[in-house]
């Protein structure tokens, strides 16, 4: 595997993991009724404690 492929794989894996973590946090926030999990640009974004 060359350097090009290694860097690309690492970048994509990091992004995918970050998205999974965000999904997990969103589900947690929903369960605890904390309002919007953020990212949708709405004013409720700031309501939940981060």
């Amino acid at each position, binding site marked *: 595997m060359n*350097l*090009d*492929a290694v*860097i*690309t794989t690492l*970048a*994509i894996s*990091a*992004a*995918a993991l*970050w*998205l999974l973590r*965000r999904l997990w946090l*969103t*589900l947690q926030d*929903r369960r605890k*009724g*904390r*309002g*919007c*999990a953020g*990212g*949708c*640009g*709405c*004013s*409720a*974004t*700031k*309501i*939940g*404690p981060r």
Partner: protein
Amino acid sequence: MIEDAQARVVLVGNPNTGKSTLFNALTGLRQRVGNYPGVTVARKSGTCELADGQKVELVDLPGLYSLAAVSPDERVVVDALLGRVKNEHAPDVVVVVCDATNLLRNLFLAAQIAELGLPMVIAVNQMDAAKARGIEIDGPLLSYRLNGVPVVLVSAWKGEGITEIRRAVAHALTHKTIFPVVAWPDAIAKAVATVALTAERDTQQPVPEALAQRLLFDSAPTIAEAIGWSAEAREMPIRQAREQVRRSGLNPPAAEPMVHYARLREILEGVVRGVNRETTTVAVDSILLHRIFGPLCFAVIMLGLFWSVFALAKLPMAWIQNGVDLTKAFAASHLVSTPMLQSLVADGVVGGVGAFLTFLPQILILFLFVGILEDSGYMARAAFIMDRLFSWCGLNGKSFVPLLSGFACAIPGLLSTRTIEDPKARLATAFTVPFMSCSARFPIYALMCAAFIGPRYGAFWESVAMVGMHVVGLVIAVPTAFILTRFILKVRPAPFVLELPRYQMPKPRDVIWRMWQNAYEFVSKAGTLIFAITFVVWALTYFPRDPAVAERVRAESPQMNAEHLEARVQAAYVEQSWMGRFGKSVQPVFDPCGFDWKLTVGVLASFPAREVIVSTLGITYSLGKGADANSEDLRVAMREAKWTEGSRVDTPIFTLPTVLALMIFFALCSQCGSTVATLAQEAGSWGWAAASFFYMTALAWIFATAVYQIGSKLL
């Protein structure tokens, strides 16, 4: 962090008294936004420096008319004043913000708060408007009659009286200035004492008279639940106490305002002078709220708003597009030795995020105008005009705030349905909120308008299309609400009271501050969610890369020049990528709507969050064009896109029917994971969320198909 030792000062008052403007003036926008524990009510606080140099925590509480709290917002205010919020003691000073043009009604709240025995300052705000109406207020006389409670005449909008407020709060902190309580008639005093005693006995905790009054007067069980007095235990003693009041000739629910208002009229005798002249607000409202001219003006204002958004955003959008192109070229030229990384950065990240960021100027201008309309007082009129439409379809009058919020984002709209007491009306409102065209739909409308409608038909028709897309959800929501409220949930209609604020000149600092906050949200989303998704979408559109594909394409077209051949190779790679294969397998479902496989991929990728479509199209079109195509933006690439197979081969994909079908699909489809989850939470069941998802998605498909099929036959 605010230290515990710091004094806490709260701002309370009726809605539309200018509390937030005063809060901004006192804190200088150094604010923190959090939430109250356990509820989704925003807690806005900041640090305020008093005249003596002391720093206090200033909290801006939600507006309310009375301590008889029903909605979550009102409950928070009562809890905060009683010191019942977790980790918060009762406030050290309460600043009651009053509207100078309606001092009597505003002081009713102050008189209720007086029963809690908290040091108080009266801020008589909007003095500029009062003077314009010919009203004069004698502050020192009012202060004298209130046993020395500081009374400050303020015009927060003009910044007048702010120093005096800082001085008055410092004085109230030191001298504990208490608003004198009313002398209750004997029957009420005895009934309150009886309720307090019984509640203390049943709950094993001290129940002050202020709480006992709420237990006696309020129909909502807010205080009883807060002190843990069960419905069975309290029913009999409260009924007996109310009967005691009734026997003395007083009606318990009306007794409290009657007694307070009688005393307040005495206090205000000679304090408020002059005549309350009819102002321009009344004259303007006679047109803007007219049965016929009102809706017409509303339509003209909305058309003008969207036209301005398009016209003013053109130049800054071109600058951003140039910036994106330069970044793309820079990245491509510096990563030649690593072609995979070059494609990831240039086509994936810069192409995807850049396509989304291009719409920043439109979003900014939209929020600027919405802020101006809100602060000028017109938005409340818009709610009033819409009230006529919605009362026809059986929605509760309180549905308007959630529906109006839904135009910004469905999530706060759904959360604000909590102000509706009737659970059935609440459910019907929650079901219709996602139909309102939220700001996340804006980028796809803007892309379609900018790429196809504007260049062919001009800015006016762009605005018409934009208004049309915002109206289409509303048009579908009305019959949906009608069926739900009349036949399924059988909601009883309830009256709606809306206080219309005075018209006033928006304060530039506040409008720009809110625009800045929205810009921050938009850019941070581009830098986080959209940024991360572009990596995944790029990978799915780039891989697998079988060299045999390139060899096959080159063998098929040996005479073609190198540039065109490279573009064809890139297009073939995208078609056989995972995303391409997936899109092609699902495309037959969306074929009746006129969507090709790339649009299908965009639509499917948008189900978690609808704004993802712009970046997804940015990547699929960037990759398909090859690395040399970085000077062409997404709009040009889409205009040139053609069908590569089937009966429509070599004809443009994006015709007017396709563009309208796509916009209508996005206007009606349930494409937001957070909204579906919030609806499930608010409705208390996933069944309603699933019903909403399938209903909206099916409607979107049906309408998009109808528009495409009928449009293709006619045009």
